[in-house]
């Protein structure tokens, strides 16, 4: 493999990371918290598609199924748990954060009951595609194309539709949103539901390209968090830069320094960002 090939693979990996981060960003925008159960939604989505594939369902149909299921699960969790905790408490941000942490463990354990702890992947679209001097696995290319399509769809929703714009309005200024008659409770439900749906979709794309297991949920949450921390929390354009950066750094580190550093790379990047650019790479400091 040439060096350029490694970098290109890293950029493609960044496409997955961007999708993983978008759902987290969305929930952060409406809730003001990082959803620590995000990785669990990703893993459940991926393993759901794996099981459906085992039962003879095409992975792309599976994608549709887990996306809808993710939206439903997200809505139920938000309505039945998180909104209630938020409504009862004064320091609701800390408590909702803790609630998503607990939820993450519950979902991981449910996942281990259903799928066990083995890492699973779907052997699908395994052939290699040659583009000029470069070779990519077809599943990676298809996955990235789908990730890009979902990201663009999400961006169109956020910038062109009433509900998407309300969501951005709420994230940018809750007081202003109230003055416009926007109901924050309903938006939190929509935001959390869409966030979980996108996470589940990201899980499907991941399971096509790498083995996943329930206990990997936490590392996916971290990767998604590193991406939005690099871009600046709530900054959708910054997240794209963050995703590519994490993907490339991780792939290059793996190529040069081995698997241990590859696995540790997102964590090291998180520490560096927190030390030197806690407001993100693109964000101006907000007074």
């Amino acid at each position, binding site marked *: 493999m040439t060096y350029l090939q490694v970098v290109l693979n890293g950029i493609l990996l960044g496409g997955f990371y961007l999708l993983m981060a978008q759902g987290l960003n969305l929930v952060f925008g409406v809730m003001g918290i990082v959803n620590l159960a995000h990785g669990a939604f990703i893993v459940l989505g991926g393993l759901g598609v794996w099981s459906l594939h085992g039962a003879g369902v095409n992975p792309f149909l599976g994608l549709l199924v887990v996306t809808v299921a993710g939206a439903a699960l997200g809505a139920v969790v938000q309505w039945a748990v998180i909104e209630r905790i938020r409504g009862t408490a004064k320091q609701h941000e800390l408590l909702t954060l803790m609630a998503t942490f607990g939820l993450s463990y519950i979902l991981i354990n449910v996942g281990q009951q259903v799928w066990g702890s083995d890492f699973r992947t779907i052997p699908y679209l395994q052939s290699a595609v040659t583009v000029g001097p470069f070779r990519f696995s077809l599943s990676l290319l298809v996955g990235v194309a789908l990730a890009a399509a979902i990201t663009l769809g999400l961006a169109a929703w956020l910038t062109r539709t*009433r509900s998407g*714009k*309300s969501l*951005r*309005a709420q994230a*940018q*200024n809750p*007081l*202003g*949103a*109230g*003055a*416009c*008659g*926007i*109901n*924050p409770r309903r938006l939190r439900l929509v935001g959390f539901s869409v966030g979980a749906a996108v996470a589940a979709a990201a899980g499907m794309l991941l399971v096509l390209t790498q083995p996943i297991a329930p206990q990997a949920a936490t590392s996916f949450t971290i990767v998604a968090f590193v991406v939005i921390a690099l871009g600046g929390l709530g900054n959708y354009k910054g997240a794209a830069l963050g995703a590519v950066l994490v993907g490339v750094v991780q792939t290059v580190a793996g190529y040069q320094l081995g698997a241990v550093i590859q696995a540790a790379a997102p964590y090291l990047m998180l520490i560096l960002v927190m030390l030197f650019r806690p407001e993100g790479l693109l964000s101006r400091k907000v007074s």
Partner: protein
Amino acid sequence: MTPGRPGPRGDDGNAPALEVTDLHAGYGALRVLHGVTMTVRRNEVVGVLGANGAGKTTLLRAIAGVVRPQSGAVVLHGRTVTGLPDHAMTRAGVGHVPSGRELFPQMSVEDNLAMGAIAVDAVRAAELRTRVLDLFPALGRMLERRAGALSGGEQQMLAFGRALMTDPTLLLLDEPSTGLAPAIVAALFDALRQLIAEGGMSVILVEQNAGLALQVVERAFVLRQGRIVLSGPAAELGDDADLVAAYLGA
């Protein structure tokens, strides 16, 4: 905004635009309002005057549902709305131009206006948009610009316009003149006069600049330490400059 328009949602036709009775409100343990009672008639324009910290902004926030009253009652067009959250008050017909403007900085002027009309049907929203751009032609020339990139005066116009887009029957204006150049203040108040002249809307104007407010309002209340200490027709209060000055600490 349209004269002769049928009464607002849930209206019994005769009730005053707003009745506030023995209202207490504040922030946590901090009490700011200590029993405010005031009535605003239909299509009436009233001012709330007072020094810094008198509770003017808190009074507007309590009416707008941003601050939840600790006790007392808020009745809008005969309907008790005490304790409703801000978004429900907006839908009940209260348009709020907050002192901090509270725009959506990353969104365009056009989208900020559109957000104001999110609870209004499309036909009415289009009418309101035309009306707002007529009142503030400057906004029409910067529809694609981000709200965060506007000057203070332009932002104030946008906050004003966005509140009008909610199709209010009661408009709350919180210190619109603060921090703006005199020419911009004059333009804002011209727009306010034009709106008032058209009728169909009640207005509560909060101002530290009593002289300016008394030129526009019919009646005014003077707040001091969370209580109404003086009220009357603007003409009388304006003549009694010493009295007003004493209460305003001017």
